[in-house]
């Protein structure tokens, strides 16, 4: 009773009668299977043809189901069918082109939505058909959609031509341009590489072999999209735009969307896993087999359980890391990354600290399919290919000076795996036994190489002064510059004078476009788990200088290119592995990059969440997770009992401080 009175007094005292709890959620959600998570940046778009950021994929990945998906537990990553009946095999046609035939499951439905109008069965939905996948692929080709992934689909026969014809016709024919998108596409006629064989079968034809194309069918970009939804959600007459109103076929549907503050997803009752559990389709049940060690971690405890296991997902916007982490510690978010400021409190000797373990938390570490590196501009006369052996030895010497383990320890709390090559662990072609001879610290050898290059003790014979190089970066804050200064200091020990040239992002881009740079630092996170998605960063046809492509080092090597083209189209066999190894050797010798690290994700989550296995890539896997709601509610209440006594201490202190002054004041006046 006293406690209740005290709390009431506190509330009344602060004139905030309904605010005396730090629980940000309604009481009605106390026992609901709701996953609470966060997003930092508002999604730019939820159009699956365009969405390419983590916060967008958090929604589109759950709302739009794909023809294929990844096995949740198996590593290396394995494709399994989802909306498709099976993962298609490539078929080489007589003219050398390659065809993949996708067969859709029968009876798949979109989520209920007014866009469809009331059907005969009294429902606001319709069946998903092969034409919907073709429609979405045409949307990717459509220049007006501005899809960022247009490039990998150019391998589809007639794809690029379709986009060009569409743009030209729109320019010339205003009447045509005013038609709805699907009517425009239909008016242009069929696309050679997109063949709708029947209502449930789509065949795609590639101009040349490209096995990686299948990975794109496990991403929301290629999800079936209903033309009705694109036409209906046009942003007119009070209707939202399609980019803000997804109409999908995935395990969840979007029920609340305020991208500045909150996004809510609820189970989609039309998802085939919910409507047809008897199908036991892959991706609709928790897997019963996984990678070695998964069973020991309890990851197979939920084997066979129908998905999704969580009924609602609440994404709450938290822009700042400190409040986000504090709310996780209070139990109001179920998962979290680890902020730099609290790393030592959470992780001790690379394991979860006893304090956090006592609160029932768990830590999962995973290496992300990414690579971060220092690159040389190979078009530059001093550090690039033009300098021949002299420049190569200079690059080799500089590579031998960078102590990446120390760098990781200082700047990332040790999070990251030192990289020996562009290919990260877990991908085909990664060799755990391979040690790059130029990716260890060997100052003696570095100095010898520098001498052989003609820069003994770092002195440029032409000037008689230390060789002057420039490290260009768009990082301008003191913290970020400190990270790069580490490398500059390392090279200074060789006698080189590397000048740090920080500029803003736009100026940096300008420099890169003009080729006016020597050394830079960059990173890449894979779109799909294949070595091709890393090695293409050094393919000469994508050199920044001649194509504006992602090969920022402008690396060009005939043998590397030849191997790249051959490797790209080969299945994962011994020969492909050998090709990757040879490409790695070329990079080892040529040193267009100094490989730094593959980033490591430390995912922290509460013990009431199960079925958590970090996935590495940006694919939402919420449907596999489970919640112990009772434990969460009990823990939250225990952790968040308000402390009332400080109010009274404060009030008494204020009165005690003021009373003598008031008394003295009146006494003096009298």
């Amino acid at each position: 009773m006293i406690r209740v009175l005290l709390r009431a007094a506190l509330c009344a005292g602060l004139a905030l009668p309904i605010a005396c709890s730090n629980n940000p959620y309604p009481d009605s959600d106390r026992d609901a299977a709701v996953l609470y998570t966060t997003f930092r940046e508002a999604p730019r778009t939820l159009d699956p043809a365009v969405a390419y950021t983590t916060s967008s994929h958090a929604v589109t990945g759950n709302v739009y189901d794909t023809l294929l998906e990844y096995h949740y537990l198996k590593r290396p990553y394995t494709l399994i069918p989802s909306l498709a009946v099976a993962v298609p095999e490539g078929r080489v046609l007589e003219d050398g082109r390659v065809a993949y035939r996708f067969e859709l499951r029968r009876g798949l439905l979109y989520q209920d939505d007014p866009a469809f109008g009331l059907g005969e069965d009294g429902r606001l939905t319709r069946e998903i058909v092969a034409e919907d996948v073709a429609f979405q692929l045409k949307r990717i080709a459509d220049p007006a959609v501005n899809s960022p992934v247009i490039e990998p689909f150019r391998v589809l026969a007639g794809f690029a031509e379709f986009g060009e014809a569409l743009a030209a016709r729109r320019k010339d024919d205003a009447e045509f341009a005013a038609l709805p998108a699907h009517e425009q596409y239909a008016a242009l006629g069929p696309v050679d590489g997109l063949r709708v064989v029947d209502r449930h079968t789509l065949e795609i034809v590639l101009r040349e072999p490209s096995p990686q194309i299948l990975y794109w069918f496990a991403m929301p970009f290629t999800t079936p999209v209903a033309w009705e939804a694109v036409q209906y959600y046009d942003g007119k007459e009070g209707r939202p735009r399609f980019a803000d109103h997804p109409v999908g076929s995935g395990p969840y549907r979007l029920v609340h969307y305020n991208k500045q503050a909150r996004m809510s997803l609820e189970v989609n009752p039309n998802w085939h896993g919910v409507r047809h559990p008897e199908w036991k389709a892959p991706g609709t049940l928790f897997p019963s087999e996984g990678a070695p060690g998964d069973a020991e971690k309890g990851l197979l405890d939920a084997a066979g359980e129908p998905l999704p296991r969580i009924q609602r997902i609440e994404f709450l916007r938290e822009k700042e890391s400190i409040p986000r982490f504090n709310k996780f510690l209070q139990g109001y978010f179920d998962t979290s990354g680890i902020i730099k400021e609290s790393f030592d409190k959470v992780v001790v000797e690379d394991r979860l600290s006893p304090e956090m373990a006592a609160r029932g938390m768990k830590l999962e570490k995973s290496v992300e399919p990414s690579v971060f590196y220092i690159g040389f501009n190979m078009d530059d006369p001093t550090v690039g290919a033009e300098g021949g052996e002299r420049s190569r030895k200079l690059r080799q010497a500089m590579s031998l000076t960078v102590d990446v383990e120390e760098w990781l320890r200082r700047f990332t709390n040790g999070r990251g795996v030192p990289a020996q090559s562009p290919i990260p662990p877990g991908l085909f072609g990664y060799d755990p036994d391979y040690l790059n001879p130029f990716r260890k610290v060997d100052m003696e050898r570095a100095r010898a190489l520098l001498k052989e290059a003609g820069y003994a003790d770092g002195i440029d014979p032409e000037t008689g002064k230390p060789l002057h190089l420039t490290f260009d970066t768009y990082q301008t804050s003191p913290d970020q510059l400190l990270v790069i200064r580490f490398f500059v200091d390392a090279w200074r020990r060789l006698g080189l004078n590397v000048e740090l040239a920080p500029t803003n992002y736009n100026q940096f881009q300008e420099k890169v476009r003009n080729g006016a740079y020597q050394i830079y630092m960059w990173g890449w996170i894979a779109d799909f788990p294949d070595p091709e998605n890393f090695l293409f960063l050094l393919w000469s046809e994508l050199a920044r200088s001649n194509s504006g492509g992602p090969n920022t080092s402008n690396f060009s090597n005939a043998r590397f290119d030849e191997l790249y083209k051959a490797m790209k189209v080969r299945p994962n066999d011994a020969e492909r592995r050998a090709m990757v190894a040879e490409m790695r050797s070329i990079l080892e010798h040529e040193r267009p990059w100094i490989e730094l690290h593959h980033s490591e994700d430390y995912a922290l989550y509460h013990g009431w969440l199960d079925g958590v296995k970090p996935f590495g890539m940006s694919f939402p896997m919420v449907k596999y997770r489970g919640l112990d709601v009772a434990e969460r509610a009990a823990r939250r209440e225990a952790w968040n009992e308000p402390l009332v006594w400080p109010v009274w201490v404060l009030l008494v202190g204020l009165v005690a401080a003021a009373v003598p002054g008031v008394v003295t004041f009146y006494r003096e006046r009298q």
Partner: protein
Amino acid sequence: MLAYVIRRLFYGAGVVLGVLLLLFLLFFTVATPDDVARQALGEKALPDVIEQWKVNHGYDRPLWPWQDFDDNLFFDHYRRMLTFDFGRSDADDTPIMDRIRDGVGPSLALTVPMFVLGVVAGIVLSLFVAFFRETYIDRMGVFLCVLGMSISILLYIIGAQYLIGKTLRWFPISGFDADPSVMLRFLALPLLVGVVSGVGGDVRFYRTVFLEETGRDYVRTARAKGAGEGRVMARHVLRNALIPILTRVVVAIPFLFTGSLLLEAFFGIPGLGALTVDAIQGNDFSTLRTMVFIGALLFVLGQVATDVSYALVDPRVRLE
């Protein structure tokens, strides 16, 4: 007075046109449409995609009238801003007017009570310390005010979130709910921070004003007539100190609409302050241009409103 107001608005229009010119130079020549497109599409976007984005957003046209008098970005920029046709966000294509409409409610829900509470707290506390002038309560009050003014608002925010939200567990650390029945739960902490962080400066200023007034003849007369000190302060000093208080208060009113950048960002309030921070962080130049333009417009209006308010509260002031 009408002529004065019209004249001031005319000068203000010149300021706004100048701001628009600066905005154009800054956002179209320093950061080119190419840069904007690259920021919007991300690092992986290829040149073709960037070109198409520029076409889709109308950034493919010439910049200056002498390049194409009928169709150029310079005239278009002025026309759009002056007709409040702000167009679409560079970042996500949302109509900017919609975002402003969505954001103004949460901003006002925070800034209006914060402003009112801040003014009331500032006046009450400054009357209190002025009442006890030259006692240790006054000295301690001034000391605390200077201390409060010296601390960064960031420290207030992080400290309040840690102490009140995390340790004492009184209010949610962050978040927002537009439902009026629970909104106060989320606004309590940012309101407290907003009021406490701003009250020091207000109290010092108002205290000085009050002390200046307490030395005037009419105060001595009131005392001589037997009025109590409390009545003198509340009825006579407060009323006559209104003009300098108004100077400080009225000029701030228009800016209530633009929200609070830091409070909204740290407490997760989806207002116009957070929108501006997002626009800065996300290189959403079209939204940023709009917010700067609105800020300039409100500043001009605030200045005029302050002048008019002088005349309203003080019959001695005539605006010519």
